[in-house]
C-alpha cells in the first residue's frame, strides 16, 4: 500500500467511526432535542401536573378569548387532540388564529395548561398579501402541515389539499 492509500483508508475509517458515534449520541439524547410536543403526544405521555413542558400546534380558529387585562386563553390543536392554554402576558406579533404557536408552561391539576411564555411559530411560506388573499379565495390555502397530526393528515385532507372541517 502506498502512503496515499494508507491515508485514504485512515480517513474513511475515521469518518465512519465518527459518524457512528454521532448517530449513537444523538439517539441517546433523543427527547431532550425536541423543542415541543404536539397535543396528541402529550395525551399519550400523561404528563404530571406541574412539570415544565412546551406544547406546539395550531391556534384553533375562533378559540382565542381575551379576558381582563392581558389574560388570554386559546386552544392549541393538531386536529387530532387539543389543549386549552391560559396565559397572562403579551403575545408575539405573529400570533394568529390558524397559525402555529408554542406555549411553555405546565398543566394544573384541573387539566388546563397554564403558560408562562407564548411564542409564535412561523411556517415555511413567504408571499405578498395579495397572493395569500388570492389563495384563500380559491380555497387552496393550507395550514402548517408540520403541526398537523399524522393520523389526520391521512384521512382529513382532501384532494385539493385543504383540511376538512378546518380553515376559513
Amino acid at each position, binding site marked *: 500500500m502506498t502512503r496515499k492509500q494508507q491515508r485514504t483508508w485512515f480517513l474513511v475509517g475515521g469518518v465512519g467511526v465518527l459518524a457512528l458515534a454521532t448517530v449513537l449520541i444523538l439517539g441517546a439524547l433523543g427527547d431532550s432535542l425536541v423543542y415541543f410536543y404536539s397535543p396528541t403526544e402529550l395525551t399519550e405521555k400523561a404528563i404530571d401536573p406541574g412539570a415544565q413542558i412546551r406544547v406546539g400546534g395550531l391556534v384553533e380558529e375562533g378559540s382565542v378569548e381575551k379576558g381582563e387585562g392581558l389574560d388570554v386563553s386559546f386552544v392549541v390543536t393538531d386536529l387530532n387532540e387539543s389543549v386549552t392554554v391560559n396565559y397572562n402576558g403579551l403575545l408575539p406579533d405573529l400570533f394568529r388564529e390558524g397559525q402555529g404557536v408554542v406555549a411553555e408552561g405546565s398543566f394544573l391539576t384541573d387539566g388546563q395548561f397554564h403558560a408562562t411564555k407564548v411564542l409564535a411559530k412561523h411556517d415555511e411560506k*413567504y408571499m405578498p398579501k395579495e397572493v395569500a388573499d388570492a389563495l384563500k379565495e380559491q380555497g387552496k390555502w393550507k395550514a402548517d402541515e408540520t403541526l398537523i397530526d399524522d393520523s389526520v393528515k391521512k384521512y382529513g385532507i382532501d384532494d385539493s389539499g385543504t383540511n376538512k372541517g378546518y380553515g376559513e
Partner: protein
Amino acid sequence: MQLDERIDRLTMQRYANPKAFIAIADRVIPWLKVLTGLAFVGGLYLALFQAPADYQQSETVRIMFVHVPTATMSMMVFAIMTTSSIVALIWGHRVADLFARASAPIGAAFTFIALFSGSFWGRPMWGTWWEWGDARLVSELILLFIYFGYMGIWQTIDDPIKAAKAARITAIVGAVNLPIIKFSVDWWNTLHQPASLVRMDGPAIHESLLWPLFAMWAAFGLFYVTMALIGTKIEILRFQSRARAMRQTEGV
C-alpha cells in the same frame, strides 16, 4: 510511476502549485471585486426597495434576505473547508490548507450574521431573541464555536506543518455538525421553520420574494470567493517570506 499517481500529478499539481495559483488569482480577483460590488448594489436594491412586504411578517421579511444566504453560506463554507482539508490530507497540498485557513474567518462572519439576523427576526416574530431548547439555533451556534476553534489552532500552533495537520482534522471532524444543522428541523420539533426552498412540493417562497433572495445569495457567494482567493494569496506570500527569512538566518 503508478498510474493513479500520474493522474494525480496531472490534475492536482497544477492547482497545488502556489505560482500557478497566484497567476490565476491575480487575473480573476479584480473582476470578482467588481462583480461582488455590483451584486451587492443590485441585491440591496431588490431587497430593500423592490421586494413586497410578507402577508404575515410584514417588512421583517427583509431580514430573510440577509439571514438565509449567510446561514446557508456558513455551512457551505465549512463544507468547502472540509473538502479542502481532505484534499490536503490525501495529496498533501499546501495551497489546499491555506485556502481552508483563508475561508474560516469568512465562514465565521457568515455564521455570526446568520445568528444575529435570526435573533433580530425572532424577537418581533416569535417573541424571543433566543431559545436554548431549539436544535437548529444551538447547532448553528456550535458551528460558530467550531470556526473559532479552527482559527485558534492556526493562531496558537507555531509550526505550520503541525498546525495544518491539527486544522485538517478539526475541519473533517467538525463536518459532523453540518447534517445536524441542516436536518435538525426535520428530525426534531423545532421553533425554527422547516426548509422553504428545498422541499418536495417546490419552493414555498413567492417569486417576488425569491429574486431578491437569489441576488443577495449571489452577493454573499461572490464575496466569499473573492475574499477566500485574496486570503489564500496573503497566506502564500506570508509562507514564502517566512521561508525566505529562515533561509537567510541559516545562511544557506
